[in-house]
């Protein structure tokens, strides 16, 4: 270049041309250097940071919430489902007048007051509520939570620049109070608080995922940009053995009876005998999981699982099974029953007055005689009695998939007081849940094999594959022969004994009534716990119904649960298309001394002799003697104490 310059100094126009190109070249070079430096700076010194900043501006990460699984009944009807909802929020600091563009290209001015009215209309809220939410200078405040997509769309169309929507979800329970406490409910902060929702939370919940992607300036996703995704794992669904129709019917029947008798509460358990599957757990009053705020705290749990009560005479079935299995007695064994029993200074009476009677053991059970039961059961040692109760699961939880199950109260045999060792034979001085009582009858109906009850039938994965939940192994408690003999006595109780109202037209039914005094929270006893547990059809027991009423008001002879049992059992048998019984019921003579008197006794004796007569002198003493399992050794047993127990009707 230098040469070119020197050779052409004289040539003026040429020099000008060369000079121009020289300046141009220098300029270009200078630019190149600047660009080069910039390149070095951007690429060499701060490459990662800048790329990150740029990507950060474009990329968005959002959490993909896992969809909570459904809870279904045995037929697949949905009991709990998660729906998409929106939370409407506001940035209060931005609330001011704004211009809303209209479809025809013009704009209209919207004042905050107008916005309040429009929002209130869209959300179906009070104007003042919306106004309160918009007033202030907080940058985040909820206007409404859990609004439907439809409502949110209306809000969005208002175009309020300071109102936002964030997706949320809402758990809805289509059946509401039908099985509400079994299905359970969720708290406001998405925490499972009751029922299956709580115990199966881990399965139902799933795992949240996240998604990172890049968006363009107008908010549309850039299709070719890299994206990261951690996959969301939706929760599994849980299928229960609960049958909504049976659950509803049982609930309606129990509610009617509890209302009629002004009972504190009532429960019904419906169970399939073969595998211990629970078909209904009805309560007389139940939470609506959609609206737990207005629920009575008492209604939140399943009472037949959470409440232990003294079972009363239904426990005579356990005593009978133990005595038959131990070879002490058979249903036809003749026993002389005295008007009352004095044993170790304890007076045991029956619910009805009678002279000395020659009865079969079946006759003792059928008319629910405490005296005869103690005569037979007394042949077992207290340790044996305790062991037999343990073998039937008394004092232990069943392990059903519901929260707060009570194990009941079974004190060890050496802690029983002198009276309690006999009263446990007819279900006083021991407490268990109505569900546990049901499992004792389940074992008898199932040929002596007890299967612990379960309410979860299968788990359905997010991909739709259904996995049956493993059921507990059945455990043989008594021999098949023993179970059959006890079943015969249960049938005689319904056909010839004191529980004729439990009969179901067309089917052979067996069962046992129970009436126990209910321990008062203030100590002693007040009111009764009445119950009936039965199975059908007796020739091949398939279903079990257990009805319990706590503190029904009225005459002790008319506060039983047999009619309710009959209604529910009838409905269950028809619902599951069980063919009517074609065989004749078993017949065992109840009395062997005077058959004519037997008819009278079975028909009228329990009714004609109100146990209430004994009540004034009875209750206090009984309370002292049997302050209940909570205080088994409290107080000296009163010799004259007599127990009112069971009612035939």
């Amino acid at each position, binding site marked *: 270049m230098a040469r070119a310059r020197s050779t052409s100094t004289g040539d003026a126009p040429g020099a000008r041309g060369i000079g121009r190109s020289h300046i141009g070249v220098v300029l270009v070079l200078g630019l190149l250097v600047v660009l080069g430096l910039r390149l070095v700076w951007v690429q060499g010194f701060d490459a990662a940071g800048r790329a990150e900043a740029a990507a950060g501006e474009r990329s968005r990460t959002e959490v993909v919430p896992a969809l909570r699984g459904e809870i279904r009944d045995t037929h697949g*009807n*949905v009991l709990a*489902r998660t*729906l*998409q*909802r929106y939370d409407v929020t506001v940035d209060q600091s931005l609330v001011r007048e704004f211009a809303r563009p209209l479809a025809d290209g013009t704009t209209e001015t919207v004042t905050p007051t107008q916005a309040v009215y429009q929002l209130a209309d869209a959300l179906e809220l009070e104007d003042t509520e919306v106004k309160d939410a918009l007033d202030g200078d907080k940058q985040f405040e909820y206007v409404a939570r*859990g*609004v*439907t*997509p*439809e*409502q949110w769309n209306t809000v969005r169309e208002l175009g309020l620049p300071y109102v936002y929507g964030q997706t949320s979800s*809402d758990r*809805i*329970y*289509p*059946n*509401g*109070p*039908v099985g509400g406490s079994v299905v359970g409910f969720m708290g406001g902060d998405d925490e499972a608080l009751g029922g299956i929702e709580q115990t199966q939370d881990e399965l139902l919940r799933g795992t949240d995922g996240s998604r990172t992607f890049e968006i363009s300036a107008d908010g*549309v*996703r*850039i*299709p*070719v940009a890299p994206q990261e995704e951690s996959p969301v794992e939706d929760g599994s669904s849980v299928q229960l053995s609960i049958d*909504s*129709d049976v*659950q*509803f*019917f049982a*609930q*309606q029947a129990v*509610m*009617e009876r509890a*209302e009629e008798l002004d009972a504190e509460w009532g429960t019904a358990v419906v169970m399939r005998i073969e595998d211990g599957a629970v078909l209904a757990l009805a309560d007389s009053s139940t939470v*609506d999981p*959609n*609206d737990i705020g207005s629920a009575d705290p008492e209604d939140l749990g399943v009472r037949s699982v959470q409440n232990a009560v003294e079972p009363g005479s239904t426990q005579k079935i356990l005593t009978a099974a133990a005595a038959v299995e131990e070879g002490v007695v058979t249903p036809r064994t003749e026993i002389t029953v005295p008007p009352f029993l004095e044993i170790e200074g304890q007076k045991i009476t029956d619910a009805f007055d009678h002279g000395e009677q020659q009865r079969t053991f079946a006759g003792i059970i059928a008319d629910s005689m405490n005296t005869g039961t103690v005569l037979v059961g007394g042949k077992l040692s207290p340790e044996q009695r305790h062991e037999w109760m343990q073998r039937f699961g008394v004092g232990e939880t069943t392990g059903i998939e519901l929260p707060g199950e009570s194990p009941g109260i079974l004190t060890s045999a050496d802690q029983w007081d002198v009276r309690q060792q006999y009263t446990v034979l007819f279900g006083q001085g021991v407490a268990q849940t109505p569900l546990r009582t049901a499992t004792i009858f389940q074992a008898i109906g199932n040929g002596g094999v007890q299967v612990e009850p379960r309410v979860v039938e299968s788990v359905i994965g997010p991909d739709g594959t259904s996995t049956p939940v493993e059921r507990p192994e059945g455990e043989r408690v008594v021999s098949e022969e023993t179970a059959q003999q006890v079943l015969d006595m249960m049938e005689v109780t319904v056909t010839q004994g004191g529980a004729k109202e439990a009969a179901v*037209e*067309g089917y052979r039914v067996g069962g046992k009534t129970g009436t126990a005094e209910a321990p008062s929270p203030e100590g002693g006893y007040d009111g009764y716990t009445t119950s009936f547990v039965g199975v059908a059809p007796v020739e091949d027991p398939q279903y079990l119904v257990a009805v319990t009423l706590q503190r029904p008001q009225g005459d002790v002879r008319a506060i039983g649960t047999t009619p309710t049992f009959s209604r529910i059992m009838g409905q269950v048998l*028809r619902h599951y298309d069980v*063919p*009517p019984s074609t065989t004749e019921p078993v017949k065992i003579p109840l009395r062997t001394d005077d058959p004519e008197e037997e008819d009278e006794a079975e028909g009228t004796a329990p009714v004609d002799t109100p146990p209430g007569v004994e009540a004034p002198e009875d209750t206090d003493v009984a309370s002292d003697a049997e302050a209940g399992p909570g205080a088994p050794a409290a107080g000296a047993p009163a010799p004259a104490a007599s127990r009112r127990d069971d009612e035939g009707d």
Partner: protein
Amino acid sequence: MSGTGLQRRPARTAASRTGIGAWAGRRGQRPPVEGTSARQLSSPAPHTEEPTGSTRAPLSVVPGRARRQRVSTVVLSLVALVVALASILVLNIQISGGQYRLVELRAQEQALSQQNEALTQDLEFYNAPQNLAVMATDLGMVPARDSGTVDLTNGTVEGDPLPAQPQENHEILVEHANQTGSEAADRAAQRAEVREREKAEQERVDAERRAGEDAAPAGGAEAGGGSLPAPPQRTPGE
């Protein structure tokens, strides 16, 4: 463009002009084209002239064909470039257009699934056992109590079936689900409210009528009618 090709050309043209049928008439002579491929000619291809030793070939002007070819290559590449760019542009527009369409479809999908959700919610509400029972009662249906069974082996009816009797005060005690965001639930809540009001009204009317009945005979001792004097009645509050 070899000699073979040149030689065959007329034949092919003939074939294409006259069609294969023209060859069929001239038996024994095979057509130059069989099927889709040309048959191999039996006569040897005419070879090119042999070089004539050191004889210098006369110089001649090369026709400007090569030049024309270069120009067309540039044009061709330019065209190819433009086409390539244009197709990339079109593709990009397509992709981003597709992205907008995707967003639109997603929104549509969401709207539809939300609509589906709302309808399912209503359906399941109607399907709940207590709501079915209430609706059945409103239609005047009564629960059957005594049902019979048909024995298919001999065609007899077992049991003692009776027509269902309407019951008094058959009320569905189990309440409906208290849901938000379901029109079905809102309607059910309204109906329940109406029913509650009617019940209260009915009770009030009944109470008034009873009070009236109690008061009426007290007012007239002739209420019994006939020749026998009506039995004396106590007036309430006496």
